[in-house]
């Protein structure tokens, strides 16, 4: 049962270093986050900014170098198994077992989350209907299209009705129709009370879906707020000019449209 007084996700001074052969890479350099229960929270940033690394720490997949993280009030490092019971995870690559059918995969996940066989079979059918994969349910996932794989991955993350759902770039590589399907699904899941932590590179996606968002660059949070507030703040700084979330992102990450255009010209030359 979700306790609405406890933040769904809280991170304090979260740091991750990777030790290479010659030097240490500081992928995340002190991230502070607080996400309330029931929110759709967007986590934006350029490639290599530290989005996925942060998600992997919060989902117990990566050790934490320094700092602290809690999910539904449970310390990620102290009790990772309890955290895993409360979260659903769909990572950047739709990680599916290529030799299992969609139905087998969902039933297996149900069993691994502690459902008995009958309950796992029932839940599998519900999820297949939810993501509209009943017709493909008995085909091995290797033959699924990218959109179908994403939908199945999302269904797999929902088997145990998680309190917090982590979606790492869930629409990357999808066609517009599949992307809209995933958006609708995220809204529907959130409508049932699930907190959604969403990383994305698509600013339109963040603008459409997220109650609040943070922009990370070079391992640090550089902006945080509601999409409307972030746009208003930049607009005021620019003397009332109308701005989009793209402008907020470019401003926050120290990049500009001029510079981006210049880079394109260089490639073309």
């Amino acid at each position, binding site marked *: 049962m979700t306790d609405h007084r406890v933040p769904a996700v809280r991170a304090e001074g979260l740091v991750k270093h990777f030790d290479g052969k010659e030097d240490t890479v500081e992928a995340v350099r002190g991230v502070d986050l607080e996400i309330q229960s029931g929110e759709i929270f967007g986590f934006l940033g350029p490639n290599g900014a530290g989005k996925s690394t942060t998600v992997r720490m919060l*989902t*117990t*997949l*990566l*050790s934490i170098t320094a700092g602290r993280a809690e999910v539904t009030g449970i310390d990620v490092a102290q009790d990772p*198994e*309890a955290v*895993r*019971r409360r*979260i659903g*995870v769909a*990572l*950047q*690559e*739709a*990680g*599916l*077992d*290529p*030799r*299992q059918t969609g139905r*087998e995969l969902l039933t*297996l*996940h149900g*069993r*691994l*989350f*502690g459902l008995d066989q009958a309950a796992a079979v029932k839940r599998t059918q519900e999820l297949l209907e939810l993501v509209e994969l009943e017709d493909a349910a008995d085909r*091995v996932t290797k033959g699924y299209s990218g959109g179908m794989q994403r939908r199945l*991955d999302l269904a*797999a993350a929902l088997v145990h009705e998680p309190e917090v759902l982590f979606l790492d770039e869930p629409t990357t590589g999808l066609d517009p129709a599949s992307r809209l399907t995933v958006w609708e699904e995220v809204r529907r899941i959130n409508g049932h009370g699930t907190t959604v932590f969403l990383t994305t590179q698509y600013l339109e996606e963040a603008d459409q879906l997220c109650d609040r968002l943070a922009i990370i660059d070079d391992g640090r949070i550089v902006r945080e707020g509601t999409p409307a507030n972030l746009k208003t703040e930049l607009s005021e700084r620019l003397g009332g000019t109308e701005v989009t979330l793209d402008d907020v992102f470019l401003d926050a990450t120290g990049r500009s449209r001029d510079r981006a255009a210049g880079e394109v010209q260089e490639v073309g030359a």
Partner: protein
Amino acid sequence: MSATIALGKRSLREALRQPDALFMTMFIPIFFLIVNTGQAAEIFPSDSTEFLRGQGYGAFQLPITLLLAASFGMASLFLVEEIEGGYFDKLRAMPIPRYSMVLGRLVAEGAKGIFISSVIVLLALPFGITIASGPLGFILLILLATLWGVVYAGFMQVVALKTRNAAAVNSGGLIFFPLLFLTPNFVPREMLTRPMEIAATLNPVTYLMEALRSLILTDLDWGAILPGFAVVAGLGVIMLLLNVRMIQTYD
């Protein structure tokens, strides 16, 4: 334990959906059995070669076939594929004991090993090979070959977890071949040249091979059988500790 069994069943389904791989696991070792026997059977006729104990040279070669087949498991390659494809992380994000992710595959390797070893021995019977140690010996033969397959697959899983690379896992598999050939694989240990005899004595696979061979050629000879099981038990403990350590510290 239920997670280990659920994941073991999944790995078995995975193997059954790759029948070509299962076929090759049996075909190559049987091919070597036929070729080796064909080449050396004339040199070692059964009626005048004491170490054959009245059987044909194929009976002497059968342990190599069983060990080869047991060492052709695909578990580590499937594991690497899973790591590269991202499904491994999906399993890691579940509230299951981490060790079940490696033990599940080993349970499946065990089930596969029983099937493959039994088929190879049963295929050998019509060609005049008998299991001199009787029904109990047959069970011990299958058990020992299967346990070796599980231990070997476990070591390959360690390579897979460490390198996360299919090419490295393939190369790792080649380690077995020197170990298999630094054994009394064509003649008994006492007939080897002195340097080869020393190498074979130091090689743990020798004791495994001699245990399997004794089960085929003689009545139950515990002096030969127990060292084989001891090798599998010792290496098995090391393999399990390494697997559990690798999966617990996987980042």
